[in-house]
């Protein structure tokens, strides 16, 4: 009689500890985000305040983002990023799907060679050769333009084929063969059988490639240099917190960050399901 009782007590103590730890951790993780939002509504100027909760709240920071565009043209940057993201996600999705399908479902001469090349190329850290990318863009006269950003983001996209390929590998080949026997061309099999069955992975690909331009810092800053009008939000916001501007613009920076973070966070939460599946599936299947 005594034993189960003590086990129960030990269990309730241990879950008590776990609740405490989890709640504490939740606070640690959520506080920076709460503060980001709080400070975006703060009326007092400056990078820091001497108390925790701001005394006055205002919408001015948000207004300033859209009206005071002489130094920091936030609406422009936002639009730039959106355009780049849309173009990138269309191109990247196209590239990734075509390459993955070819490598997964079609058998042709040189296929293993391509797989090996892809393996080696993936070992190069993406922006290791950014100087060279910059020079190439310069040679074709495309630096400091949004087109060049789209090209850079989507150019190497096909190398991220393995997750999608892993997905295509799981679709039964019998379906393809049946359609081929019925006289369908390979293009038709791809368009009317494989693609409709691959909705989750297509959504995943679209979302990841849409989000990438919002996150990138390094290529955007290498390519755009000082052309403020072509900035994306990431490098634009970074300018606001430079030493000269931070006093005046810290709260505005927070407001801008909130405006970027909210839609991206929503998209991310929407695709979280695909994210976990994609990674887990990719890990198992390689």
């Amino acid at each position: 009689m005594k034993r189960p009782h003590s086990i129960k007590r030990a269990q309730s103590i241990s879950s008590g500890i776990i609740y405490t730890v989890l709640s504490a951790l939740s606070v640690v993780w959520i506080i920076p985000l709460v503060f980001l939002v709080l400070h975006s509504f703060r009326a007092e100027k400056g990078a820091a305040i001497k108390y925790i909760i701001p005394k006055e709240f205002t919408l001015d920071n948000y207004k300033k983002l859209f009206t005071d565009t002489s130094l920091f043209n936030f609406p422009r940057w936002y639009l730039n990023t959106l355009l780049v993201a849309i173009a990138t996600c269309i191109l990247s999705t196209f590239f990734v799907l075509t390459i993955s399908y070819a490598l997964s479902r079609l058998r042709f001469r040189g296929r293993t060679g391509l797989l090996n090349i892809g393996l080696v190329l993936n070992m190069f850290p993406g922006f290791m050769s950014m100087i060279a990318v910059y020079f190439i863009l310069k040679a074709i006269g495309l630096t400091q333009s949004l087109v060049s950003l789209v090209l850079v983001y989507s150019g190497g996209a096909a190398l991220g084929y393995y997750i999608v390929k892993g997905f295509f590998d799981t679709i039964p080949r019998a379906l393809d063969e049946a359609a081929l026997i019925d006289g369908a061309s390979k293009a038709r099999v791809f368009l009317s059988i494989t693609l409709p069955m691959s909705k989750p992975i297509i959504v995943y690909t679209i979302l990841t490639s849409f989000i990438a331009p919002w996150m990138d810092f390094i290529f955007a800053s290498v390519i755009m240099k000082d052309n403020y009008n072509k900035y994306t939000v990431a490098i634009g916001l970074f300018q606001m917190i430079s030493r000269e501007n931070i006093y005046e613009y810290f709260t505005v920076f927070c407001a801008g960050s909130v405006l970027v973070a909210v839609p991206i966070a929503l998209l991310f939460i929407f695709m979280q399901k695909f994210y976990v599946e994609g990674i887990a599936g990719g890990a198992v299947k390689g």
Partner: protein
Amino acid sequence: MHKGSFVMDYEYLLAGKLKRGFIRIRESFKSFPSRALLFFINLPRNIGAVFIKIYSHFKEIVKIFVLGDMATKLSFVVMGMGCIARKRFIRGFLYLLLQVLFWFFFLTFGVVYIAGLGTLGTVSQLEVYNEGTGIFEYVKGDNSMLILLYGIVSLFLVVLYIALYFSSIRECYRTEMLKKRGGQIPFFSDDVQDLMDKDFHKSLIFVPSVMIICFTILPIIFMVCLAFTNYDRLHMPPGNLFTWVGFENFRSIMGFSDSSLLAKTFGKILGWTFVWAFFATGTNYIFGMLLAMMINKKGIKFKRLFRTVFVLTIAVPQFVSLMFMRNVFADTGLFNVFLQSAGIISEPVKFLTDGDIARVVVIFINMWVGIPYTMLITTGILMNIPNDLYESARIDGAGTAKQFFAITLPYMLFVTAPYLITQFIGNINNFNVIWLLTNGGPMTSDMYASGRTDLLITWLYRLTTGEQNYKIASVIGIFTFIISAVFSLIVYNYSGSARREGEFQ
């Protein structure tokens, strides 16, 4: 499954699921050196195989030249002639057009730059006093950078042209044979249809490959070339030219030449990069897993709520949270100001501006960034651990901690090893966290153009954008590649998925 001895296989078969995992890990690490060695031993053979392949193509072409009829022989000079003679007009003229275009490009453009590759330019831009107008004028000289870039592109196109040339000749010969056998000569529309069916892979691969060549392969080749030149601030074309210097840059970064500061800096940054990658990966992994276990423990309520809180922090773009953190922990940032006004400290704590503190702080902030990711990814795998393992452990009297170290951790290490190593590579190249938090700073004078938290990759970035020391940046890039490649090969070797991928279908 394993190339091990019979004893090993026997041991493997007898082992339980968990033990098998151990054996696989052990074998994988044991076999890595020999595999790596094998890779290098096989390298000459593989390169040899490529040459043999090229040779066999040549042999085939010569054979076609001997066996083919007049029209086919003419195709050696006028591309596509054999096709045109057999009424495959569109295809034949397309070949011809490409030939004309190529030779036009080659003679007006390519040949100059390919010839220039040897020296990378000899005449630098000159300032010449023009007596007539009374001002200094620039006389256009060579531009090493453009010569190198266009030279590589031209070489690429030449190789591509040769491939096209061969395939056109083969196609002409094929048509001739078809005609001889009285077969149906394909119309151009048939060729197009083939691209949707028999040759569908060509249509699928073409555009993405062009993009990869332009924006991945070409830049990599270009960068590797730069590592063997003296391209830096003192050799900036068009004012000054740069040229080949062999392994000079590698020697100086390894400390074999006079600039000891560079070698010292490289050693220090390399060391810190590994320390950082080790701790950043390890802390995220262990604590992320513990978090996942706590959330998923039986009897814990509000699982969804807790999970959402942590997922929310990854949903927010990394650069936003990192830039915010940078300000929170700045010398006059929120945290310091608050602590000071609360009277806890009198002087601001230099979270990000003191070398040693900054190194610890970036690892802690990285935990904030990364732990939820691990939590997300390990959740599913944790639930898959067979429950009877825990039960038998409990019967044997193992406590929670013991269970974690004896069952959970080994199991997870086994299943997620590829993920772990990939994370490690990712952290070696973790530009965002370091750059957005500290810019690699605080800068020190006893290192060459770098700060205390600089990783190889942020140092590379600074050397290219700030210092314009492209030669050293390229060498660093090559080293980064080698490091990443070694670890990637371990993953590849471990998962072995590529080798076995055929089995799935």
